[in-house]
């Protein structure tokens, strides 16, 4: 099998401070993973704020250049494609969905403007009827219709509708990979599952691979095929989602799981923080420089000392 997307030893350092007192912080350190061609999956990157998950997503989208390593799409490195045809071809295949649906569209412009622009630029459609057909098809796949969206301004749609319109915008150019950065964290609870379920439909029905970036282990467990857990820029554990979350190995993964507020024992007031796991994950972070990812079989990787 050939790789669709290959993140190969990618690190990103940000320079802090000015000319005289420059320090470097690593947002992402040596991240490796690949999505295969022909097998669409939901690949989840989990981490808290500051874990580097968003930076990694930005690098995959080509918005940020890795300091080390390389990201290849269908074998071609994506860095350096800032403008031009190659960049356009890449953007046709890899599309983003952002966090805040209320911010996803310019409040002063109509929503369909973006869907139309995507269809025009990336699929080269020019005829009015073809454009409408392409837009309607994309909107239908997210449970909306062109009639509902055409001529509407963002404030006329609900958060759930906007997020679906944003996904439709990405789908209009028939991408292979969708990068969804916290797509439901700003959506109201009653509308949230509609979006999450939609991501699953995209994988199953349209064959789109989704890189789902989240801090929420519960939805990750619910929809992901594979999962990658990041702590302060480092991948600490990776593997099949159910397997990893049912039985996390790395102390940090275990801490994250232990910190999820369970609803199954509602009303029990079970709030004791897992102090021992906090300590263990802190220790693991301190010794992270001398650790490496160890293969555990079935594609499962766990960061271990030594």
């Amino acid at each position: 099998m050939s790789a669709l997307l290959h993140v190969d030893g990618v690190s990103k350092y940000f320079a802090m401070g000015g000319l005289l007192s420059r320090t470097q912080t690593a947002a992402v350190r040596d991240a490796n993973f690949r999505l295969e061609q022909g097998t669409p999956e939901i690949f989840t990157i989990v981490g808290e704020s500051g874990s580097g998950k968003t930076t990694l997503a930005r690098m995959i989208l080509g918005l940020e250049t890795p300091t080390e390593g390389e990201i290849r799409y269908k074998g071609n490195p994506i860095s350096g494609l800032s403008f031009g045809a190659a960049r356009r071809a890449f953007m046709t295949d890899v599309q983003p969905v952002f966090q805040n649906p209320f911010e996803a569209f310019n409040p002063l412009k109509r929503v369909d403007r973006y869907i139309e622009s995507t269809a025009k630029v990336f699929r080269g459609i020019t005829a009015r009827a073809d454009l409408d057909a392409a837009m309607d098809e994309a909107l239908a796949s997210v449970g909306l219709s062109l009639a509902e969206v055409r001529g509407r301004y963002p404030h006329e749609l609900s958060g759930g509708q906007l997020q679906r319109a944003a996904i439709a915008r990405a789908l209009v150019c028939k991408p292979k990979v969708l990068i969804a950065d916290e797509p439901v964290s700003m959506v109201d609870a009653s509308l949230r599952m509609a979006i999450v379920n939609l991501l699953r439909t995209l994988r199953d029905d349209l064959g789109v691979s989704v890189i789902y970036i989240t801090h929420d282990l519960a939805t990750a467990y619910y929809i992901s095929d594979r999962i990658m857990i990041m702590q302060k820029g480092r991948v600490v554990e990776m593997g099949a989602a159910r397997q990893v979350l049912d039985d996390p190995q790395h102390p940090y993964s275990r801490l994250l799981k232990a910190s999820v507020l369970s609803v199954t024992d509602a009303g029990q007031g079970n709030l004791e923080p897992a102090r021992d796991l906090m300590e263990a994950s802190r220790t693991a972070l301190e010794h992270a420089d001398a650790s490496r990812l160890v293969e555990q079989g079935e594609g499962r990787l766990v960061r271990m000392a030594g």
Partner: protein
Amino acid sequence: MRAYLIFALKRLLQLAVVVFAGVSAAFVVAHFSPISPIETIIGRVAGQSSFSPTAVESLRQTLTELFGYDQPLTQQYLNFWSRFVRGDLGPSLIAFPTPAMELVMRALPWTVGLLTVAIIMAWLLGNILGGLAGYYQNNRPLKAFGIVAIGIQPIPYYIIAFLLVIIFGYLWPVLPISGGFAMAVRPAWSFDFIFSVLHHAILPALSLVLAGIGTWFLGMRALVSNIVTEDYVTYAELGGVNRGTIVMGYVTRNALIPQLTALAMALGGIFSGTIITEQVFSYPGLGTLLIRAVNGGDTGLVLAVSCVSVIAVASAIFIIDLLHPLLDPRVKVG
């Protein structure tokens, strides 16, 4: 402390660049003058009075060096800088043979004094009143002051000074409208002299305060009326914190930070306003000197005033910038 020093050093670098750019610009503008100044000036000086040939020769030499048409451009530029650093821009023309720099240095304290007093008064008064007006939005006198401020604020310095001259010079002549001190008083550290200086400074200072206070008042009022809706103010009110503490420690304290930045940004403009005002009141500062120099065709003096102005303003901005981190703990020093 070390971080602060690094921060200060960086600002110093910025100051140096501004001074360099400003002085260079002055040189370039003077250099590309279509008028050839040297012989015109020599001719005028020599024709008007009977100076000693050596003085005339020294003037010719200075001017040749300053404008230095006999040398390559880079050399002229370097010469200009070396003279500038030594503080020697040649003798002035209007008060020949007093060095131009000496005239500038004599005028500088007047301008700086007037400017400092006027800025501090306008800034403090405007901010205090504006802060109160922003917090007590239904207070009638403060509302009325706001309307007056909107009326006065856009009037340029010159017109305000001019109006004051009309009022206190012609309609109700109670204050001196010209000069830095009375002719009859000798400059000394005497009560009479100081009183006379203060007396003469009232109108110029008043016109500067009038021109400036509206800006600060309106700016502060807008800022404060925003800050009172901030969470930390709401929270303090919910917490039953003292009114006085909220107004001073929460609202005003936070609003002062952007107002200080605004002061640094406005300084160039205020300086221009000051020298315009000086000219109207014949105040013995840089402004009056500059106009005299222009009317007298005194290139060296015009250059000296321009360059010193650039340095003065840039240094003042530098000092305000240094205060900034002391007022705002969030500014990253370093």
